[in-house]
């Protein structure tokens, strides 16, 4: 069943390993993706070694700064293999990772899956 907030949505995957990133930058990408698809519904699927809902700590700013779009956050799994399984046969999903050196990024690169690295806040005060 598709919820009304998921209908005609822009779907994106985010890998959260716990690295602090510029969530504003991620949010801009999500808005751009939604605008290109002429929708105000965003579905963000999370893959993270962090258990649910602990990964939300790294999305809090993004969630609280969003007031204009419907945002559905759903947990997909904890391993790169689960992510690959989800992406199989799905062409219109943007993939974002918070750490270009993570095992997730390695596997995605090896499998030829396009992804974007969210700029890090490492070394900067949040």
């Amino acid at each position: 069943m598709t919820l009304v907030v998921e209908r005609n949505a822009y779907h994106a995957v985010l890998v959260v390993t716990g690295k602090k990133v510029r969530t504003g930058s991620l949010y801009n990408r999500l808005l751009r993706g939604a605008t290109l698809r002429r929708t105000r519904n965003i579905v963000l699927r999370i893959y993270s070694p962090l258990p649910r809902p602990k990964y939300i700590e790294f999305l809090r700013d993004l969630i609280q700064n969003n007031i204009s779009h419907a945002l559905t956050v759903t947990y997909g799994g904890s391993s790169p293999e689960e992510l690959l399984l989800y992406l199989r046969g799905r062409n219109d999903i943007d993939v974002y990772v918070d750490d270009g050196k993570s095992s997730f990024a390695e596997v995605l690169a090896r499998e030829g899956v396009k992804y974007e690295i969210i700029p890090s806040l490492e070394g900067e005060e949040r």
Partner: protein
Amino acid sequence: MSDSGYEIVITTDRTMMSNHHGKEFLGFMATGPAIGVPHWLWMWIAAPKMKVDSEGKPVQAPYGLRKVEAKLIDDGFRAAIIDPDHLGKHLNSMKVLMIGHHDFFAYGPPSSEWWMVTGKEPVNRESFIKFMNSPIIKKAKEKGVRIIVGGPAAWQWLWELDRWKEWGVDTVVDGEAERVISGLVQKALDGEPLPDYIYVGPHNSPSIDEIPVIKGASVNGLVEIMRGCPRGCKFCSVTLRPLRFLPLDHILQEIDVNLRAGVKGVILHSEDVLLYHADGVKPRPEPLFKLHEAVAKKVPGHIAWAHASLAAIKYAEENHKIISKIMGDILHEKQDFLGVEVGIETGSVRLAKIIMPAKSAPYPPEKWPEVVEDAFAIMHENRIVPAATLILGLPEETPDDVVKTAELLDRLRPYRSLIVPMFFVPMGALKNMDWFRRTALRPEHIDVMMKTLEHSLYWAEDLISNVYLKEAHLAPVRFALKLFLSVVKKKASKLRPLVESIIEGKISPAEIEKKGETAVTA
């Protein structure tokens, strides 16, 4: 246990599942810790239990929960609001447990402020945490019941991730839920994976036709007359939603539901009652007179307003005599007074222009202090008693802004009202209240807080005895409240010399902290 219980159970904790002795302002005591009186007495004043039927269904329930219940019932689900003490009756049948709240963890105002000032957790937080830790919730989760939480305070779960995990909450829903809730519940019943978090965007807000009529009575007869607000104040999320006016017929149907349950009064709910079918931000007399005449004819009890804006009050009276007509003609025989919440927010024109440039509309923001004072005078003359709020500690605030607010407070002294300061507490600071008290609280803030305390104490006795709680059956509540007030007055008089030292710069709030004193224990 019966198998004929409900599969969808909607509930909340005691501080919300109460009609507060029929006096909703008493519910605000649930936002503070028990001070000066025993905890059990504080809870009895703030949130007494209500009668329930044989299934544990309360006679009255929070309006937001009634909307969720109504939507689910209309869509064919076996759903009901159940009192928190009676969830056990439905443990066998329950598949989905839905929990709503105005302030789950006391991070909203005024709870966070009382927490900061007293150093003690407010009772609403204590009560909710105790409820979620109760055996029945644990058993429900062990049984595989899906837990969905939501309401105006949904955002607070983002800051309580450990508890979210510990209690096994499946989904947090933030926003107007009518178009989402049935689909989500169906997914839960079908055993499908559920999203962790849903924010319902303004474009997903329900149309008038999609807003259901409540099936059971709301606390103290609250019914909404409209949703949304056109003013655009920075600190308010409601203004983002589309403006919708509920038809009179819909409003009267909901009042009928309340009357059938024995709730004799009504609270007309809106962010600004006077903007019902307004011309932008200018109140129009005809819809308001029609609304009040129809409601007054129907309800045997009192009418109250949830909120009204000071600018609309001033405009309504000066241009159309709306206030004096409603109070003097329409409601004159019915009631001595009308209660309402209003927002002063600030006495500084500079700050008003930054955070709420449309709050004074149709008057220019430069006139804001005058708008406040004129509106208070109009309300006083027409027996409207406001509970007013102001906001301290906004990021853009300067010491001079706070001084302007203090000056405005002095001018408001002659007008019957309660005034409560709300502290803008950044979320990060809530995790370290001591740090916040030491670094953010300034002498000007303390001056304003003392002024509001003295103002409200001055008028509170009059309001308790002669206006709000004068019914004979409320004598025990009056007594308990007067006891509490006497404790507060004593502490306030002890605090005055200390506060004056702070204001005169002889001692700083930080130095007081070092001595281990809080504003209340000093």
